[in-house]
């Protein structure tokens, strides 16, 4: 009997820089933009979802729709809207998904004002692997000019008081990893043990 995921050895991911990020020309790509400390200084979100899993599920959601994912790390800011919008303008389809180390996620489009978005998932403690899969899937459907139903956003009144302090600390750490003046770089995900195929 092969073992299902739940008991599989934890997957890891490391990001390998391959050069400055270019503007894509393929209309069938979604750019996933990662914050400065994602899968670097940090390896898990605020509720301990491994970054490897976040990335795998986002990419799987995109791949299942027949769209390709390209990874970019934004180094000069820790602001999610700025990260996502930068990536949207690099994306061949104009669609991007931005992720912060603590898990906060956003789907953005290049023609939108920077502080707007297509879908925003602001409560990082409520985001788990299935939600990341749906986010990836929706982003890919936008890239295909389909009309996906927005991912149902959960809401927890207690999330703010309970997690705010930790979120603030994580944000400060993320802020420390900013490399001012460096443009976005293209990265490749190298998944660790537990991965097959």
């Amino acid at each position, binding site marked *: 009997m092969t073992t299902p995921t739940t008991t*599989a050895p934890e997957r890891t991911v490391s990001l390998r820089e391959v050069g400055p990020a270019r503007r894509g020309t393929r209309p069938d790509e979604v750019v996933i933009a990662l914050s400065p400390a994602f899968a670097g200084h940090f390896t898990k979100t605020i509720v301990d979802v491994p970054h490897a899993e976040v990335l795998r599920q986002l990419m799987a959601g995109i791949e299942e729709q027949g769209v390709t994912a390209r990874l970019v790390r934004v180094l000069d800011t820790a602001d999610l809207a700025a990260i996502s919008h930068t990536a949207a303008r690099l994306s061949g389809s104009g669609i991007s998904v931005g992720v912060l180390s603590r898990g906060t996620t956003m789907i953005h489009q290049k023609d939108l004002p920077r502080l707007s978005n297509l879908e925003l998932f602001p409560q990082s403690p409520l985001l788990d692997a299935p939600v990341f899969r749906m986010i990836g899937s929706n982003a890919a459907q936008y890239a295909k000019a389909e009309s996906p139903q927005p991912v149902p956003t959960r809401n927890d009144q207690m999330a703010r008081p309970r997690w705010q302090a930790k979120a603030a600390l994580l944000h400060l750490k993320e802020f420390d990893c900013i490399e001012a003046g460096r443009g976005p770089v293209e990265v490749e995900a190298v998944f660790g043990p537990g991965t097959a195929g």
Partner: protein
Amino acid sequence: MGAREGAPPEGLLVVGVDIGNSTTEACLAVVAPDGSITYLGTDLTRTTGVKGTPDNTEGALKAIRGALARAGRSAGQVETVLLNEATPVISGLAMETITETIITESTMIGHNPTTPGGEGLGVGTTRSIGELGEQQPGEPVVCVVPHGWDFDDVAAALNAAVAAGVDVVAAILAGDDAVLVTNRLTRPIPVVDEVAAVEKVPLGMLAAVEVAAPGRTIRTLSNSYGLATVFDLDPVQTRQVSPVARALTGNRSAVVVRTPTGDVTDRRIPVGELVLHGAGKTLRVDVDAGAEAIMEVVGRAQPLDDARGEPGTHVGGMLAQVRDTMADVMDVAGQPDVPVSDIAIRDVLAVDTFVPAEVRGGLAGEVALENAVALAAMVRTSRSRMQLVADLVSEGLGAAAEIGGVEGEMAVGGALTTPGVDRPIAVLDLGGGSTDAALLTREGECTAVHVAGAGELVTKLIDSELALGDREVAEGVKWFPLGKVESFFHLRHEDGTVEFVDQPLPPHVFARVVVLTPDGPAPVPTRYGLDHVRRVRREAKRRVFVVNALRALRQVAPGGNLRALEFVVLLGGSALDFEIPDMIADALAPHGIVCGTGNVLGTEGPRNAVASGLVRAHAALLAEEARCRSS
């Protein structure tokens, strides 16, 4: 009716007021003693309260004051206020599903996931992915993957099994992983995913999995003889599986499992008989025979005295529901309740429709379009209390108020002010609850009929056929043209033209099918494409308004012959619709009829016909001439 005597020399200031189901309209005019009319102004406002109740007074006064203000006159100068005799009909709606698809023993999966994997046909024995390791090489296997398996692990397990010589020919997955798994396989196979109740798939049975290429539909499993070939069936068994094949038609992917007694049935729900009394006959018709058969029988029982449903059946329940609603509307405080049994249904419109419903026994939340019949019924009431409204208006304005005439006849009078029409003239008043027709012959005779079914029924059909579950959205789909927002700076209209906008469109309409309301695009929450929504909208309008227009006109036309009509004028709120007038005109064109939307007084469009008709009738009375004088 008085006001025949003593007209002052400079003419009387008269206001006609039409209280409708949704709007109240007023028309102000000066009527000279010789009967000539000078129109001064019109106004319209929302009807307050239910039509025909004292609550209407407020709206009526508002409309009158509005018209006076526009003409620069004061309330004290008004001589007479004329109110319409409200159409004595109320209408109600009911809908009932008449078919039901049931899958027994989990024999079939036909839910059309958006992203199946691979393509082709795989036939083998169903085995759980956990048992693949123990599988003997050689025998073809359809792998069933339960919840909780990661796509990488599934692909690894399948690749390992294939490497060990197991002949894996297809897979059925619980999650949305089909493309991910097939992308990682060394040997491509068809994969069907998103099967929510995958644990119910019987194991150890012969099964066939088929996935078609993108943009195509399956060919083998949707063909009875294809199924017979795959499962080696004899003619008797082939007959049994034909509903399965039919249920899978049009899908991109499907699974059929052969079990000893499994079956898909397309059951007709016994809905009961509709009993129609009319024209001295009592006719019975099975509701599940469909709208066409029902309407044919309704046509033979004209004029209808009453319609009843067999007690204890669905149709009995439907008509009881309609009667109950109407009894509530007619109930008036201070008067004894209307006994439900006394309410006679005077017209019925049946419309075939379909309702997307989840298939009973389905494994993946399959949705089948079940047939349904919608019934609109109409009841005559004697309890119009317009006189009370007239008294209240008179009190509020300090002028005499009287009931000026029957709505249908007044509407014809108003319609005659449309440029370019002449007698014989027929009007079609396309309202919310009922469609009314009236005919004025060359000799001045006027006949009017009311038939059940109008705007409300269209909204209901759109709501249920698109599974919107929101009346407001359905109303929007009915009223406004559609578009698809393709980027933040352009949208494509339903006729294919592209419009660019200067200001970026709001994010919540991005990539959505929208209705183009005057306040900007509003999203339609549906997974159907623009073309489908458009087709549903137009079909709903055709089945209600075109059918009813022909039905009502046949009833007023001399000898039921549409060719005897010359001018047909469309009035009422639904005549303002952007496509209904064209659809009706198209349907009437073969009969040599001039048909178009009315333009009352040459300025008011299809509005204000009854109000200005009231003024005309009053003027005619004043001049002591024939009521239906040619102008």
